[in-house]
C-alpha cells in the first residue's frame, strides 16, 4: 500500500507542478493532467512487469510514472531539454520510454490500441509470457480502430488488457451523451471477460487488473476493465481560461470527496504518509532542478531522428 500511495503521490505532485510550469510558460503549449485518475495507472501498472508493454494516451504522464519512468527525464522532456525522455522531440503528448515498455503516449484517441495488440502478438510469437496493456478513455470507446482491435484481440486470443479510463468526459461531451449501451457490455460482446471497477480505489483497480493480466499471461486472451474515475482538472491546462459550462462545481466537489489519494492515504499511518509526501517533494525538487539544468536542443539538430539514416529535405533550396 505504501508503494501504491507513493506512486500516486508522485503523479499528483508531478501534475500540479506541471500546471504551474505551463502557467509560468516554462512548458510550451498545454498538457493534459492526470489529477484525479492516479489510482488507475498506479493500480494497473502495479501488476505489470518491467518487460510488459503499455500504450498510453494524450493524458499520459501518470502511465509513465506508474510504469517506472524517470521523472527527471520526464520534466526535461516537458521543458524541451536534451535530457528529455524523447530528447525534446515529443513533449507531453508523445512522451515514451521504450526501455520500460512504454510504446508511447498518443495525440490521437485510441490510436495506440492496435500497437499494443501487435506487441502482444509479437511477445506471444516469441514464446514469452510478456503481455501488453492499452489505456484509453471513454472517448476512445467510440473510435473504430479500438473496436477493430477488440475483434482482432479476441479472435487471436492476444495477451492484451484493455483499460478504459472512464473519466466521464470526452473533452466536453459526457459519456452518457456519447456512448450507446454499456461499455462493459460492448466489450463483452466480443467474447472477452469485461468488468467495471471503482477507478478511485487503487487496490480495487489492482485486483481487477491483476485478474486480467493473469489471464493474458496464462494464454487465456484479452480482457476489458472499465475504471470509473474523474479528472479533477480541465481537459487540458488552458481550459481554466475558457469558461466552459459542461460540468458543475458541485459535480467536481462530489468526486473530490472520493479523491484516490485520500482513499489510499487513509489506509496509512499519518506519520508514514507524511514521510512519503516529504520524500516525494524532495524527489520532484531534485528532478525539476535536473531538468532546468539540462541543455536546450540546437536548431541545427531539428531534422535529426526523422529517419533511420536519411536527412530530410530542408525548407529552402540548396
Amino acid at each position, binding site marked *: 500500500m505504501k508503494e501504491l500511495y507513493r506512486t500516486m503521490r508522485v503523479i499528483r505532485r508531478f501534475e500540479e507542478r506541471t500546471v504551474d510550469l505551463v502557467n509560468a510558460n516554462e512548458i510550451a503549449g498545454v498538457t493534459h493532467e492526470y489529477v484525479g485518475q492516479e489510482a488507475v495507472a498506479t493500480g494497473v501498472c502495479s501488476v505489470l512487469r518491467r518487460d510488459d508493454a503499455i500504450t498510453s494516451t494524450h493524458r499520459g504522464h501518470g502511465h509513465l510514472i506508474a510504469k517506472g519512468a524517470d521523472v527527471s527525464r520526464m520534466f526535461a522532456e516537458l521543458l524541451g531539454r536534451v535530457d528529455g525522455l524523447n530528447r525534446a522531440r515529443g513533449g507531453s503528448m508523445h512522451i515514451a520510454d521504450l526501455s520500460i515498455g512504454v510504446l508511447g503516449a498518443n495525440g490521437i484517441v485510441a490510436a495506440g490500441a492496435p500497437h499494443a495488440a*501487435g506487441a502482444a502478438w509479437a511477445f506471444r510469437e516469441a514464446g514469452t509470457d510478456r503481455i*501488453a496493456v492499452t489505456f484509453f478513455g471513454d472517448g476512445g470507446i467510440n473510435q473504430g480502430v479500438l473496436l477493430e482491435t477488440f475483434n482482432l484481440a479476441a479472435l487471436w486470443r492476444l495477451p492484451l488488457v484493455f483499460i478504459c479510463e472512464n473519466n466521464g468526459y470526452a473533452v466536453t461531451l459526457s459519456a452518457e451523451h456519447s456512448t450507446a449501451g454499456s461499455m462493459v457490455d460492448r466489450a463483452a460482446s466480443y467474447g472477452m471477460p469485461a468488468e467495471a471497477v471503482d477507478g478511485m480505489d487503487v487496490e480495487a483497480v489492482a485486483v481487477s487488473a491483476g485478474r486480467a493480466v493473469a489471464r493474458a499471461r496464462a494464454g487465456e486472451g484479452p480482457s476489458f476493465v472499465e475504471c470509473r474515475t474523474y479528472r479533477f482538472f480541465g481537459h487540458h491546462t488552458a481550459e481554466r481560461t475558457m469558461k466552459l459550462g459542461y460540468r458543475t462545481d458541485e459535480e467536481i466537489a462530489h468526486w473530490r470527496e472520493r479523491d484516490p489519494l485520500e482513499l489510499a492515504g487513509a489506509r496509512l499511518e499519518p506519520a508514514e504518509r507524511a514521510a512519503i509526501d516529504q520524500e516525494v517533494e524532495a524527489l520532484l525538487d531534485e528532478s525539476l532542478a535536473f531538468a532546468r539544468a539540462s541543455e536546450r536542443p540546437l536548431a541545427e539538430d531539428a531534422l535529426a531522428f526523422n529517419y533511420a539514416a536519411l536527412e530530410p529535405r530542408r525548407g529552402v533550396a540548396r
Partner: protein
Amino acid sequence: MLRYQAALAKALRDELANDEAVFVIGEDVRESLRGVSRGLAAEFGEERVLDTPISEQAFTGFATGAALVGRRAVIEFQIPALLFIAFEQIVDQAHKLRLMTGGQASVPVTYLVPGSGARLGLAGQHSDNPYSYFVHAGVKTVLPATAHDAYGLFAAAIRDDDPVVVFAPAAVLGVRDEVPDDPYVVPLGSGRIHREGTDVTVVAVGHLVHDALALAEEVAGEISVEVFDPRTLYPFDWELLAESISRTGRLVVYDDANRSCGFAAEIVATAAEELPLVAPPRRVTRADAVVPFAVDLERAVLPSRAQLATAVRQTLREEARP
C-alpha cells in the same frame, strides 16, 4: 525472365527465408488474390502469414506495434484506396514515431499496393495512384517500373528500418524482365536512366516509364529523349536528375497522379529552383478528376503518350526566359 508480380512474390519469399522477424499481414494474403503471397502460409506457417478481418486501421497499427518490439512487417493492401483508411496509422503513427520518441522507436513496416492506378473500368474508388500524399508527408515511397527493380526495391523496403510504401502499378504487373536468382537489393533513393538522350529529360513514373521509352523510340530520328525513372519517389535521386539535366537542359515530367500538389509538381518546382534548365519545365499528369467508369472517359483523364509527345515538342521550341 520473371513477370513483375512474380518478382514481388520472389522478393517476399526470399525475405521471409532471410529473416525470421519478417511476417506478412493483410486481407486474403493466404489465398493471395494478387499472387504476391501465394503459397507462403504453407511454406512459412500461418503464424507468419496473417489473414486479417477487414479492419485496415487496426491491422496497420498492429504491424506498427509488432515492429516496435522487434518484428518486421509487410502489409498488403489489395486496392490503393485502402491507404486512405489506414492513412492516420501510416503517416501520423508509424512515420512519426521515430522523431516523436527522439529516436527510440524503429518502425520497419512495408506497405505494398500490388495494383495501383487505373486498369480499365474499375472506376472511382479502385483507380487512384495516391503516392503523392506519402511523398508530401515524407514517408519513403517506392514505385518500381520493371520486374528487376520491383524485386530489388521491395527487398530493400522490407530491410529498411523505416516505414516504406511500395506502389506496384497495375499496368505493369504482367511485364517481364530478367531477375537474378540470388537475392539483391536496389537501394532506396537511387534513380535509373533507362535510355540516354541529349535533347530532353523525361522523368517518367511507374508504368509510364515504358510509355516514355516507346515515345523515345518513336521520335528517335527527330528528338533525342533521355528517360529517367526515379524508382523511389521519396527520397528522390536529385543528384542523378541534376546530371541528366546538365546534359539536356530540358525537363518533362510524366506522372499518372493528380496534377495539383502532385509528384510532378514537386519535381518541376525543385528543378526550376535548383537545376540548369534552358527552357520552362512541363508536366503531363492525370487531370484533377475522379476516374470515371466508362473506358473512353477513363482514358480521357489519364495522361497519354500523345500529350507527352506534345509536351516534349513544346519544351524543345522554347528558350530560357530572360
